[in-house]
């Protein structure tokens, strides 16, 4: 066993081989540097060891020199290397514990005595080449201490003192007197041949001339050679041990008895393993699977293997193929300009249309690696397993198919198509227009405080009447027998006889008005009726109905005897109905809900329409009750018109909508048209033709074909047929009023550009 352990390289320096056995102390020094110290101390101390020192070093001594200790060696050899280490450590500690006991100390003393001898001889051997006495001569560390005792401190601290330190006796060492100036230095440099090898000792302040040996040493070190000239780094190495196993053991001990007895522990271990193998707990190692990784996986393609899963599978969409802009040398138009580059950089990475900046390289070798390549692959991976997938049907719609098929406007003629005449003369926006029932005359009221009467066919202004304020509303009496126009100026409604047309006719009207006889008892009226006289009568004024608030709208009943006015600020009397023949006024409603925008009489039946901001209420005047409430779905109704048939109503609103109500159908709009871009100002129905028009602030008038069938089952047909432009937009206002010619398919519109236009 001993021979075996020797051949192992790990243990080689623990024991000496037989052939070239080194001295034990030497290896000890190699292994544990502490040892040298201890040995040195012992050398210095000689024989007289103090108790404490002895005990400390003895422990170390023991552990290291176990080759020397005969008792321990036998034990150690049985265990393997690590065991030895541990054991020695244990030994050390145990020895320290025992150090108090006298017996142990004695024993160790003996041992140390023995060892000391050997150690001394060892040192002598080791320091063979250098004689023992030289050791102290070369030791320069003490020398410095002797001269100056300040220690290893920066000498600048003594800069301002006359001395430079203290000698061993504590006396100051004074700086040598130096009175050399530059010149002296220079002379010295020139004259002294040893100047180059003179250095100043900072500790003492004296100049030292370096010896030849010292200079030689410096030179060697500078050249990167060893300091010692005699040292040969390349001397042939001498093996301590041979690599061959020798027949003789290293030690001379007889083999222990234990080495002949089979180990019980080993037996136990082996039996355990055998049992485990028998029971199948330990299996023989599987041979590595060397068969090739890949084979023909799709050798038999089984159509049954295609499960429902595969049919439901949503394959991941393939990555988009690169376009020209991704090329390393793209056509110049695909490169981004400076502004585009800036915009690209400022965008969020998710919002960018391209996830890279197109670049141009003059040659292929100049193309660098793409820094986000791994990122892009990674993002693709994430998309593959994290992104929710959904089957989406992409409808490929031809936009032309979306446009509804409507009857051609050509087939729906006649309707106004072109601008025929422009009636100029007003100097401010023309708020309202009205056509006489005969269709020959046109009345217009404007913000320039005039009312003008035009001949329709020639665009000639026949009369101009001055009034005291802006004309908000004007309405021609629908009864062809009367020749009267009602208009609202500030707080009053003025009934004017324009004295146009048939002389008999308008004289008859005058007579009719004059024939009025005041009743005996004057009824209490909300308004004040006065007949015009003198100059005003010559102007054409016949009657003035004074209200106490601003009048917004006036409208006639179909028969021309009643007229209704809207007075928005008048509390509960927002709507008043006047009877011309009896000069009587009455407030039909006890209470008004909401702000009344406009009112209308039904052309045939005794119905009365009142439009508030959002609703249109239909009252039966005979029964004096509310029959219907129409929901316009608009924010603010601006105007209203009724079909001559009386079953359909259109409402224009300031939120640019036009709602068509079929009264038979529902209270909700049959159709809401959003044709205009801005607020609607006026709507109108044609009396004969199935036409209606809407005027808006965007400067356009849209004429629609609105056919109402007598068959109740058929819904009205609404087709926009013409978009009429002509009015200019001034002060954000476009077309303010629109009305149709009573007999012809002509359309009049008045605008904020002070003109009235006729479209035929």
């Amino acid at each position, binding site marked *: 066993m001993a021979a075996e352990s020797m051949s192992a390289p790990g243990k080689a320096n623990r024991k000496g081989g037989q052939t070239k056995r080194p001295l034990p102390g030497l290896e000890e020094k190699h292994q544990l540097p502490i040892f040298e110290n201890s040995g040195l101390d012992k050398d210095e101390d000689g024989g007289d060891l103090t108790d404490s020192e002895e005990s400390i070093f003895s422990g170390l001594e023991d552990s290291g020199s176990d080759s020397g200790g005969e008792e321990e060696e036998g034990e150690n050899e049985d265990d393997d290397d690590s065991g030895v280490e541990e054991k020695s450590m244990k030994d050390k500690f145990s020895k320290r514990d025992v150090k108090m006991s006298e017996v142990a100390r004695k024993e160790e003393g003996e041992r140390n005595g023995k060892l000391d001898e050997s150690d001394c001889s060892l040192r002598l051997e080791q320091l063979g080449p250098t004689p023992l006495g030289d050791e102290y001569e070369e030791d320069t560390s003490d020398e410095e201490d002797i001269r100056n005792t300040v220690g290893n401190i920066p000498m600048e601290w003594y800069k301002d003192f006359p001395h430079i330190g203290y000698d061993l006796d504590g006396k100051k060492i004074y700086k040598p007197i130096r009175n050399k100036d530059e010149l002296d230095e220079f002379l010295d440099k020139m004259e002294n041949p040893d100047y180059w090898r003179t250095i100043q000792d900072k500790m003492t302040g004296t100049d030292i001339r370096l010896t030849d040996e010292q200079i030689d040493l410096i030179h060697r070190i500078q050249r990167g050679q060893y300091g010692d000239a005699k040292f040969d780094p390349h001397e042939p190495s001498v093996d301590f041990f041979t690599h061959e196993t020798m027949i003789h053991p290293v030690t001379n001990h007889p083999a222990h008895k234990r080495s002949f007895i089979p180990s019980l522990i080993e037996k136990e271990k082996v039996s355990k393993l055998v049992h485990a193998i028998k029971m199948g707990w330990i299996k023989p190692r599987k041979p590595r699977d060397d068969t090739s990784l890949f084979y023909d996986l799709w050798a038999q393609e089984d159509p049954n293997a295609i499960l429902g899963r595969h049919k439901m599978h949503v394959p991941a969409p393939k990555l988009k193929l690169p376009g020209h802009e991704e090329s390393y040398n793209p056509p110049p138009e695909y490169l981004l300009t400076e502004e585009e580059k800036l915009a690209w950089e400022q965008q969020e990475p998710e919002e960018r249309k391209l996830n890279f900046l197109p670049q141009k390289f003059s040659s292929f070798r100049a193309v660098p690696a793409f820094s986000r390549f791994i990122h892009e692959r990674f993002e*693709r991976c994430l998309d593959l397993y994290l992104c929710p997938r959904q089957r989406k049907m992409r409808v490929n719609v031809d936009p032309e198919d979306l446009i509804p098929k409507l009857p051609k406007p050509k087939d729906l003629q006649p309707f106004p198509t072109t601008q025929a005449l422009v009636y100029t003369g007003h100097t401010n926006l023309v708020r309202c227009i009205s056509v006489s029932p005969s269709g020959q005359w046109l009345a217009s009221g404007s913000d320039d405080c005039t009312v003008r009467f035009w001949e329709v066919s020639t665009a000639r202004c026949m009369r101009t009447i001055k009034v005291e304020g802006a004309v908000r509303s004007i309405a021609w009496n629908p009864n062809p027998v009367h020749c009267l126009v009602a208009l609202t100026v500030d707080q009053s409604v003025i009934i004017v006889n324009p004295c146009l047309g048939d002389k008999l006719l308008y004289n008859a009207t005058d007579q009719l008005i004059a024939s009025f006889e005041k009743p005996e008892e004057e009824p209490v009226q909300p308004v004040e009726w006065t007949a015009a006289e003198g100059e005003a009568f010559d102007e054409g004024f016949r009657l003035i109905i004074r209200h106490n608030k601003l009048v917004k709208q006036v409208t006639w009943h179909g028969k021309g005897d009643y007229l209704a006015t809207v007075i928005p600020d008048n509390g509960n009397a927002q709507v008043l109905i006047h009877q011309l023949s009896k000069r009587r006024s009455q407030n039909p409603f006890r209470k008004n809900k909401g702000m009344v925008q406009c009112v209308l009489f039904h052309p045939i039946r005794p119905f009365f329409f009142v439009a508030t901001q959002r609703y249109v209420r239909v009252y039966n005047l005979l029964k004096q009750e509310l029959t219907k409430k129409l929901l316009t779905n608009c924010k603010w109704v601006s105007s209203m018109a009724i079909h001559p048939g009386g079953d359909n109503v259109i409402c224009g609103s300031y939120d640019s909508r036009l709602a068509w109500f079929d009264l038979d159908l529902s209270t909700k709009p049959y159709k809401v048209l959003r044709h205009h871009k801005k607020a609607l100002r006026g709507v109108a129905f044609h009396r004969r033709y199935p036409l209606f028009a809407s005027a808006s602030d965007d400067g356009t008038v849209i004429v629609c074909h609105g056919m109402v069938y007598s068959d109740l089952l058929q819904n009205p047909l609404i087709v*926009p047929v013409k978009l009429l432009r002509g009015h200019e937009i001034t002060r954000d206002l476009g077309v303010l009023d629109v009305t149709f010619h009573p007999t012809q398919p002509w359309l009049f519109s008045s605008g904020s550009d002070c003109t009235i236009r006729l479209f035929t």
Partner: protein
Amino acid sequence: MGGLEKKKHERGAATNYITRNKARKKLQLSLADFRRLCILKGIYPHEPKHKKKVNKGSTAPRTFYLIKDIKFLLHEPIVNKFRDYKVFVRKLRKAYGKAEWSTVERLKDNKPVYKLDHVIKERYPTFVDALRDLDDALSMCFLFATFPRTGKCHVQTIQLCRRLTVEFMNFVIASRSLHKVFLSIKGIYYQAEILGQLITWIVPYSFAHDHPTDVDYRVMATFTEFFTTLLGFVNFRLYQSLNLLYPPKLENKPEENELKQDDEEKYAMDSESYMEKLAALSASLARVVSSNEDDVMPDEFPADGENAELLEERQKEQQILEKQKKLFEGMKFFLNREVPRESLAFVIRCFGGKVSWDKSLCIGAVYPVTDETITHQIVDRPNLDKQFINRYYIQPQWVFDCVNGKTLLPVEDYFLGVTLPPHLSPFVEEKDGDYIPPEKLKLLAIQRGESTYECETQSEEEEEEDAEESEDEDMDEIEKQDEERLKNMETQKVKGKKLNVKVTAGTVKVENKTQASQREQAEEKRLAIMMMKKKEKYLYNKIMFGKKRKVRETNKLAAKRKAHDDMLKAEKKKSKKMKSQ
């Protein structure tokens, strides 16, 4: 009303979906394992049609899996392997802690591994399915093959990726199935057609990656694990279909062997160099049965009417393809050391060319620079000192442009030091209304056989220039004339003031009938659009917006190009003037 109370969310869509966390709990897997399983088995979340219904009334953002998918995962053998692996790791850690090295060794020997064969068969029941999904697999493997052998992932994975990609490239060479190549700033795109499937992959430029830190390499590694298995099986099958040996063997040609033998022996061990020789892509592969290349002509069936035309077209396409396959046949290329060897060798060999490079650059060089029969040398430097007379020195882009153009382009544009023509993407198919760069038009003309197009345009341009110059002169003359006329007019006017007012006959405005009708139609359309329903109008506006945007982009590109060309022309003129002065 009798019957059980109907509870909410117990029928309908809600029962078909399961949230991710619930699925994870059902499978008793950690999130990482669940993710890995999803990646391997190809399970992805689904977006329900009515998210709120499925989410039991909540609108919280959740990912949903189909409950059927999760049930499908329940019986997966890989799940058990995951659990085994967890146990294995625990045991191993314990053994390490106790420093029981023999146990560690034993455990490592018995490390649980799983195979993905069945997963691949399950996900891709037919071979064509597998081919269809090969894009990502190839891109990923090509990326992993360029990774350094240290750090990010296992060396074995990288080596396997390299092996598989080399095998695939060799197959593409052998089958000549490459169609398109595109040098982008991201990398090189390749497109091949295998069994009628278009497969596109991207290869990064061979530089060291600066590995980003915000990327989860575990996810990528899991994907690569699957992709390598898939690619391996696909490769096997592809090699089999061409009667090639798998794993690939190089064809032994006796005369070449003698040449190369000596320097290869110096190079490396046989087993190591074999892989590299394969990767060099310069030699062809050995076949199981040495096939004599007689193409089996497909039987022709008499076709009638419309079919005949279709057939003819198809035949034409076939012919072009066949021609493209033999594009570089009979050419001998030599690659200078500064050009990317692998991609060029791959492309040239795919189209039947012979290619070689400097012996010191890579193993597998077939002939040296001094070979007299070399027709093209590919160089990517401004100039070359020593040039042979009987060969073209061209830049690498020529090869790629030729492949994409399906013809041999004139080499003059690609000589050394010449500014290259733009490199266009072969993947863009312009529809009518799209912007087509002029280079593409030129290419199309060349493909149609109008080789003179370019010369003509050039001469035209020059003529134009001349014309412009003369025009300038003309303009001067015209201006002079105008001035004279104006003077005359003024004098006449002065005279006219003295004359009496005269009524001239009005001219009849001739209305263009077609224009009028067009205007009418436009108005009709505008009116009809007014009557659209809200929903349809929205859709219509959206479509029209898209169309308009497209037109705008096209116009923008065209304008940019025009500005650029004008600038070039102006510069040319300037330089001409400078020269003349």
